[in-house]
């Protein structure tokens, strides 16, 4: 059976490549609704583009117009495959290194192997047809490359695709896992980077969970996930007192404070104040609590100094003063702020203090530049006033001279 399909697939491919007719597409394009849709979708399909038509997967004989012939079992027609057999079905080609090599010099052929390690794969193997198979994510007809923005597995569309099942309470009811991940992810800075800035380097579902071997990262592997981009935070955390404690607790490192899906923008409010994350465990008077309060206060101080600088420079700029160099310099203070917030992950106020002090120095310098600019603006206004007075006196003089000239009899 397998041999038949492959043989017909190759024939079909050769046929299509040579420009032979594809009766499947011809007939089905003339139908309507669900029977027509696949034929239309195949126009954009990566398989079709490489010469693998309908018969490559469904079997049958695309050279015959007679439905009895083209869709006969004798010619290898398999019809609509059973969901549970789809992964193996796709793997017939996609796990065959020699076959895939015809289309790409460096093909990946481990997708099926990875899939079988995933929760989806395991559930399919045990006969649960509700779990995801290849076609659920990649589409059936009209499969596009992952890079294609219209592909359901493109980073920008992936959350929506995963959410089709994972955000559906009815579908997920029997598995007992939460269905709020998509909603949470949409609140995160990662989704903001993807959607608003189009920054494709930001993580989508597959970046942390893996794609074919999709599994929630365990406690041990969360570090591998976050630390791939956030290297410095990871390194500092590893050396910090939190690491051994969280490991012992079986708590998943970064996720404890930053959450897994709803990774929000950080702020000093996470360290100190009513919304503080630290106070969830640390008592206000404990060593940890005091350290958190200190770090929070430090960073808040730099934050405020930077805002003060920015606002006075903005005021000066609006008043027409040229302060572009000072404005550029505030970026150095902003960078110090970033460094300080990274240093928080050492959970040591001394580590945070150093960049904060550097930043405060720059902020003070730029604030002074703003003050000087405003002073210069005032000086200009005074200068203007003086010259206007001189002008008005002259105009008065001219006016009276004219009056005198014209009041005299000629």
């Amino acid at each position: 059976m397998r041999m038949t399909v492959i043989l017909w697939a190759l024939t079909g491919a050769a046929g299509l490549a040579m420009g032979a007719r594809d009766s499947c597409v011809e007939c089905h394009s003339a139908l309507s609704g669900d029977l027509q849709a696949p034929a239309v979708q195949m126009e954009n399909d990566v398989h079709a583009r490489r010469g693998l038509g309908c018969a490559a997967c469904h079997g049958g004989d695309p050279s015959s117009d007679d439905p009895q012939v083209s869709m006969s079992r004798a010619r290898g027609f398999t019809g609509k495959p059973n969901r549970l057999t789809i992964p193996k079905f796709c793997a017939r080609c996609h796990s065959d290194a020699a076959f895939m090599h015809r289309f790409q010099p460096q093909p990946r052929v481990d997708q099926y192997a990875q899939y079988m390690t995933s929760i989806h794969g395991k559930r399919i193997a045990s006969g649960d047809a509700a779990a995801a198979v290849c076609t659920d994510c990649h589409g059936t007809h009209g499969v596009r490359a992952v890079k294609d923005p219209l592909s359901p597995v493109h980073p920008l569309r992936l959350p929506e695709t995963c959410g089709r099942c994972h955000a559906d309470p009815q579908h997920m009811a029997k598995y007992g896992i939460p269905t709020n991940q998509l909603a949470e992810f949409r609140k995160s800075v990662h989704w903001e980077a993807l959607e608003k800035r189009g920054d494709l380097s930001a993580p989508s579902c597959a970046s942390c969970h893996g794609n074919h071997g999709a599994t929630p990262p365990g406690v041990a592997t969360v570090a591998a996930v976050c630390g791939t981009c956030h290297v410095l935070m990871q390194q500092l955390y590893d050396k910090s007192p939190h690491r051994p404690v969280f490991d012992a607790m079986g708590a998943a490192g970064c996720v404890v404070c930053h959450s897994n899906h709803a990774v929000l923008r950080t702020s000093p409010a996470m360290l100190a104040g009513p919304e503080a994350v630290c106070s969830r465990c640390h008592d206000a008077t404990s060593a940890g609590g005091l350290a958190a309060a200190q770090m929070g206060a430090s960073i808040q101080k730099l934050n405020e100094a930077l805002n003060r600088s920015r606002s006075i420079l903005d005021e000066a700029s609006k008043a027409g003063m040229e302060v572009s160099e000072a404005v550029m310099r505030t970026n150095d203070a902003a960078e110090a702020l970033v460094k300080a917030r990274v240093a928080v992950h050492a959970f040591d106020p001394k580590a945070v203090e150093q960049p904060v002090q550097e930043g405060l120095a720059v902020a003070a310098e730029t604030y002074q530049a703003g003050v000087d600019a405003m002073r210069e603006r005032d000086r200009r206004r005074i200068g203007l006033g003086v010259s206007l007075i001189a002008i008005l006196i002259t105009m008065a003089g001219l006016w009276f001279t004219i009056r005198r000239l014209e009041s005299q009899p000629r």
Partner: protein
Amino acid sequence: MAQERRSILRWLLGTGFTASIISFIYPAIRFMNPPEAPEAAVNEAPAGNVSDLKPNSAKIIRFGSRPVLLIRTSETEWRAFSAICTHLNCTVQYQQAERQIWCACHNGLYDLNGRVVSGPPPRALEEYSVRVRGEEVVVARRA
């Protein structure tokens, strides 16, 4: 009486005229006097002496108002790139062991041609030209 008024008028006109002329001429004359640092454009920036950097080391210098990463790759070879990462504008640094340029913010990596090796940066780093004049190292914009 008329005589007095005439002289007040003359004073008014004279003083006003003189004061206003001075308020026009004074700025013009001060303008013509060149300021301390007569260079307007920053096409070049001094980057210290040859002896300041050892081979396979780097430092950040100021080019106008922007940071530039100056790398001494060998005894005789120098490279310079914009130190602003093309991902989210953090300042990059040189990694001596790996001989690569690294951005600490999101682990972006560039090679010694400024091109992206891995990580989120979308574009290469802008390259600057380095000239060694005797003992002095000068970084200039690539024309």
